[in-house]
């Protein structure tokens, strides 16, 4: 409950009796734009996708779209997309969290600001420009490839190729590590030096402090950040499309082809069924977060 905050906004009214209705009116007026925004940009599109995923091309009810969506190659696409989301979230979240901790605990004010601004720029890089950046740098004739070769490292000696699932994960880390730094820094900031000192005074070792206090405190934030990264990688479209020519089955690319392709036609509603599949995966991904959050809030009170 956020009532204390509201009453500081409206302290004069709070002292009188019967101001609750005034308060809730203010609350409603304040929340209204958000509700309208969510309605127009979230619930309405969600509803229309849900509705037409059960329709055929002539508007009649059908389950056929979901039947097809559960078969191949869409099944592989879901498993690839979930793998891509998980691996790139984990490989970006761990270095991101470590950077955030080092910067927040050891860094000077200036360094913190510098990292924050760099991170916010990098975290918004995406789409085709991001793909092209990596193609130009790490492609077969890229500048970074040439530089590494000058030092005797040939990244193309083995079977590595940028235009694969591994390549896409590599490219995504470019914006996902900075994203992690941004979203995780406030949580690290919340760990007070006093707690660590207090734990030490009571005889705890550093390892014990982290195991008993630090990690349990940061864990919910870490999981929610991880979930954010998972969602970003799971749903990213343009970069993957520019880098794979459809040779890696990914759900967003398949939806794109169904809705806007020149080859497959008349199957837009199958695309919507796949979109509903993505919604369900996202909802399932929320469950561990909600469980952890509930546990965490129990002892945060």
């Amino acid at each position, binding site marked *: 409950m956020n009532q204390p905050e509201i009453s500081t906004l409206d302290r004069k009214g709070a002292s009188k009796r019967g101001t609750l209705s005034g308060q809730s009116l203010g609350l409603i007026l304040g929340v209204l734009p958000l509700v309208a925004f969510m309605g127009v940009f979230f619930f309405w599109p969600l509803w229309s996708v849900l509705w037409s995923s059960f329709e055929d091309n002539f508007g009649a009810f059908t389950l056929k779209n979901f039947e097809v969506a559960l078969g191949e190659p869409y099944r592989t696409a879901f498993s690839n997309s979930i793998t891509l989301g998980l691996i790139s979230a984990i490989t970006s979240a761990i270095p991101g969290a470590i950077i955030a901790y080092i910067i927040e605990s050891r860094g000077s004010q200036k360094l913190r600001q510098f990292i924050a601004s760099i991170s916010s720029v990098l975290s918004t890089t995406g789409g085709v420009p991001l793909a092209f950046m990596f193609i130009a740098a790490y492609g077969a004739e890229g500048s970074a490839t040439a530089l590494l070769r000058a030092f005797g490292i040939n990244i193309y000696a083995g079977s590595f190729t940028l235009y694969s699932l591994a390549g896409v994960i590599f490219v995504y880390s470019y914006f996902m590590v900075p994203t992690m730094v941004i979203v995780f820094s406030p949580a690290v900031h919340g760990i007070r030096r006093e707690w660590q000192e207090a734990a030490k005074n009571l005889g705890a070792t550093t390892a014990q402090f982290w195991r008993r206090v630090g990690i349990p405190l940061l864990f919910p934030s870490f999981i929610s950040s991880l979930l954010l990264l998972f969602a970003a990688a799971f749903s990213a479209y343009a970069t993957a499309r520019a880098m794979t*020519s459809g040779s890696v089955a990914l759900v967003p690319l398949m939806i794109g082809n169904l809705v806007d392709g020149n080859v497959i036609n008349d199957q837009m509603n199958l695309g919507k069924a796949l979109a509903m599949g993505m919604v369900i995966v996202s909802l399932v991904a929320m469950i561990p977060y909600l469980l952890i959050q509930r546990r965490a809030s129990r002892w945060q009170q």
Partner: protein
Amino acid sequence: MRAKRLVALAVAAVSVVSMSVAVAAPSSAATNFCTVTDLKTAGGMDALVAAAKKEGTLNVITLPRDWANYGEAMDLFTKAFGIKIVDDNPDGSSAYELQTIATAPAAKQPDVVDIGVSALNTVTGAGRPSIFAPYKVSTWNHIPNVWKDPAGAWYGDYSGIIALSYDSTVSPAPTKISDLTNPAYKGMVALGGDPTAAQMSFLSVFAAAIAKGGSVTNIQPGLDFFKTLKSNGNFVAVNGNGENYAAGAYKISLSWNFNAPGAIASAKKAGKTLKFVIPTDAVLQGTPYIQAINKKAPHCAAARLWEEFLYSENKGITSAKVTAADKKLSGSKLFAKIMGGQNIFVSGGATPINAPAMIKAKSIIDGPEGLNIPKGAKIVQPNPDQQDAAKKLVVAQWPTL
């Protein structure tokens, strides 16, 4: 209260619509250019040109400038008739064109579309409302019957042949599709795009099938061929576009022959030499793209003049040679003086739909050099049904190849 306001709104809307109609109506108030179905009912070329000039604008959609020489076609049309061309989303897809017709506000509606056959099938099937305005161009009889709607709702305009494109540094130079497995081409071969999304790439897989012993009813050898290319490391899954070529991400690709002049010019700007050749083991002719006038076209006369222009077989002058004096000519004289769209497609390397009649009448010009069809080669063209069957295999196999 609410009803009243609605009525007032409706009245206002109606008066706005009728006002804009009044403004758009040509001087010869008798002719409604939105319903004319040929040049005769339009009152002749002079009347059509005059009405189109008055409208002043033509809305086209998804026409890349270096695609089938559309850049020159648009330049010539604008320069000769003084009609501005607005090209919405030049790199967009056929699906985007149809979605725009379905959803865009009146003023943003395209006047004409250029769509793939498979997209056409989604709007002309049984039980679908017609979204095109029928119109038969003057050279209507030259369009082969299979590629036009008897009522004039749609008509094929040009088609391409799948060509090999390669950087001049590639050694040995490939001459056929089956060459592409050569270990010397490791990490060099790309497709123009995703074969499950782009018609050109889909037909590139089809061409590979023809090269490897497949047929119009058997695309499997093409898929197997790309599987080999993928496993031996020759294939890179990068989009075979101009930027990626300039960045050195690939050196060999398959593309429409009619993209050659534009692609060669852009490569030159990037300091590279790009070459095109028709593969000797597969001459695959695509199905033609389809031209149609939108029923909701905001510029009805300009739309019809554009179609007359695209199907004109005149040899005439190009945009660079149009003079101020030419622009003062009467509509019909000016139209007769400029190059027709069919020959503009030829100079871009495409095969115009009227080609058989034009060859007979010797009204066809020479295409760009170096894109000759190999002697004795058999031209293969899968029909729409064969393509649909092949697509199912590609969609099912490509993502997990």
